[in-house]
């Protein structure tokens, strides 16, 4: 069974600085997809970034980028130039290629300090 681990329950960062959130996963699959979702206090789950395992290039979306290390089964999220609106829970999620199920980690609560 696949598992997703986020080892940092809480993190904080000063506004305008950079922070990295960790995620590791366990799978025997070769093809799969990885996601980061953001859940602000409003509770809505918002997609931040998506990575296809067969693509070696790390995905980026504006200030958000990932460091995808397939051999190490690691998928960290880097947030550059942190903004107050980045304060949220961040969830790492895994989906194997033959499935439609997202398997979530336990989340990391990020606080951006002014």
């Amino acid at each position, binding site marked *: 069974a696949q598992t997703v681990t986020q080892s940092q329950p809480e993190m904080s960062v000063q506004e305008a600085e950079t922070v990295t959130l960790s995620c590791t996963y366990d799978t025997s699959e070769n093809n799969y997809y990885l996601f980061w979702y953001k*859940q602000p206090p409003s*509770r809505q789950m918002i997609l931040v970034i998506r990575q296809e395992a067969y693509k070696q290039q790390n995905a980026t979306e504006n200030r958000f980028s990932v460091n995808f290390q397939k051999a190490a089964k690691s998928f960290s999220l880097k947030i550059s130039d942190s903004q107050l609106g980045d304060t949220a829970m961040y*969830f790492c999620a895994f989906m194997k290629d033959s*499935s439609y199920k*997202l398997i*979530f980690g*336990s989340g990391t609560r990020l606080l951006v300090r002014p």
Partner: protein
Amino acid sequence: DTAVSQTPKYLVTQMGNDKSIKCEQNLGHDTMYWYKQDSKKFLKIMFSYNNKELIINETVPNRFSPKSPDKAHLNLHINSLELGDSAVYFCASSQYGHGNTIYFGEGSWLTVV
């Protein structure tokens, strides 16, 4: 213009009652989901429908019954509510196909007292 909308957003009800949560998506997707987020923020899939056909049915009590009248709607009915059913229930949708991004609604916060 909300893409995945759920009603109600908040629901407080007594143990033993029956309640429904409705979900609609206007993204043109053909696959819809129900996820449950417990008090520790842990998210887990419950059901998924593709074109009104059930494709994922996790180990969920029989008191939970999803219904999809068409591919744009997926409702969740819960019978005989228990205290442990208190959670946030998220509806979501995607286009059918492995690895496609799943888009979530705002969640329905159910409190059973």
